[in-house]
């Protein structure tokens, strides 16, 4: 338990710039864990038990869908809210079906992401 108030957010995004952007947008007040691909994301998820996961779909190696399936099959992180972000058109339905809680289309409005993250974390508290 590193600081009982700070919630942990796992960001899984292969594009360095976007990963940095997401971190900046979500902002201070959270403990951010970053992964550049699917394998890393799964390892970090089981290690850190994040309160929320922001996941890109299109990544080299294991895709975001594979990561989603693994996360949803893992009892320890099964209930963790997952926000899927993708630049692919028409990926929303598939992502929600695969177990995502929310879907954000890239490019995205930073405030929109902030709102979603806050509402999901607030909902998870109740």
């Amino acid at each position, binding site marked *: 338990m590193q600081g009982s108030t700070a919630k942990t957010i796992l960001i899984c995004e*292969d*594009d360095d*710039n*976007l990963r*940095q*952007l997401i971190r*900046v*947008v979500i902002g201070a007040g959270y403990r951010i864990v970053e992964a550049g*691909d699917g394998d890393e994301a799964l390892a970090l998820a089981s290690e850190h038990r994040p309160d929320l996961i922001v996941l890109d*779909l*299109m*990544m*080299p*190696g*294991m*895709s*975001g869908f594979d990561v989603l399936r693994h996360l949803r099959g893992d009892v320890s992180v099964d209930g963790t809210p997952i926000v899927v972000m993708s*630049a*692919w*058109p028409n990926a929303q339905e598939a992502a929600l079906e695969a177990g995502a809680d929310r879907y954000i289309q*890239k*490019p*995205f*409005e*930073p*405030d929109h992401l902030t709102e979603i993250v806050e509402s999901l974390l607030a909902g998870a508290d109740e």
Partner: protein
Amino acid sequence: MKSWSLSARIIAASVVLAVLVAGVFAVLIYAVVTLDNAREREAATKDVRTALVGLEKLVIDLETGLRGVVLTGNPRFLQPASAARREVPRRARELERLVADSPIQQQRVRALRVAINDYVDDYLVPIVTLAQENLAAVRQTLAAEEAKRRTDDIRRSFNELQSTEEGRAAASAASATTQSRRAIVLGVAGLVACALLIVLFGLYLARSTAHPVREAATAATRLAEGDLSVRLSERGPGEVGELTAAFNHMAEELERHQRELQSQNEKLRESERRKSELVHIVSHELRTPLASILGFTSVLLNRDAEPEEQRRYLEIIDREGRRLSDLLNDFLDAERLEEGHLILAPELIDVARVVAEQVRLFEGQSEKHTLDMVLPPTPLNVHGDANRLAQVVGNLLSNAIKYSPEGGTVHVVAEQENGVVRVSVRDEGLGIAEDQQERVFVKFFRGDAPASGIPGTGLGLTIARSVVEAHGGSMNFKSDSGEGSVFWLELPTAAAG
């Protein structure tokens, strides 16, 4: 006379039938005419017989008159003889007319007339004259041979005429019977032959016309129902053969057109599918840098940040903006290559320097990859467009990194041998499946990359190879799935200037 047309065959058969029917009728008409002639002949014989009997009666009248006068001495008895004497020439002429068709009979009639005349002139008249003077002497004479001889001659003539005439009538009747029988046999045989021929002709027409026409109709129906493989036998005579040949030609053409349409359709569908895939790729490839640009711009505009951070964000915006610009240039390049409008600005350049610069640019981009570069001590001079060749080398490096997601070493070698400058880039990545290798340089082809989540447009290698080829060089690769790939380009060396 190779092969008769169907109409020629039908006309020929009709002519044969018509000739046969006409022949049969001619034979039958001939039989009727023959019978008619025989009946006429019989009638004529009857007339001749009647005339002969009439003439014979006159002769008997003459004889009887003569006997009466001689026996009684009474000239009254001579009256019928006188009438007969007047009558004889007329009757004889009539008889002569009746036998006009037979010269022998005519001659006989004439001889008979002469004999009767002689009998009258040389015997009857002198006897009658004598009887008025010396009846007794006459009576003696009458009994003599002379009288019997004369009347016997006349009678024999009558008999000859009679029997000849009967013979003629019998011969004519017999010949008429034979001929009419023969005609009836011929006629019946002809009619049977006609009937058989008509039936055969009908069968032939049915077989050679109706049957193929029905087959053609059935085939046309099947064709209309979509079975384009249907064909007819082309062995029919004349026009039927032409019809079936034309039908088959039509079916072949239809089938060919349909095949063409299907293949065009498939091409269209494939191009449609690729276009929609392209739209996906483009939108993804554009949205990723756009997301950074818009996102950081929004952060800069709406949130507070340290000047140092601001600068870092602006650098990202700048870099991603350039990435977008490069992407658009790739699309434009692909378009230009398609139209053959690639413009080069060639100068004498050192390929080793171009390679070194690109390797330096990519070195910092990936933490997982090590770039290992081997360059010769001397410059690798070629005539070429430095920017374009840098784009090519950059593409090979970018691919080597992208397609080895697990990381590893990328080996870059630039060398010169036998007047050829060669640059090769080898990775330890995914490699290319054998069945996809021949399409590696095809525009927009990305193999398994989209499924593996590797971004890209499928344009890089297409452009790279075109650029190298525009320099008079060549580009190729070797790859084993799962063991990585090596891509190389070869350019003609330029003399050092």
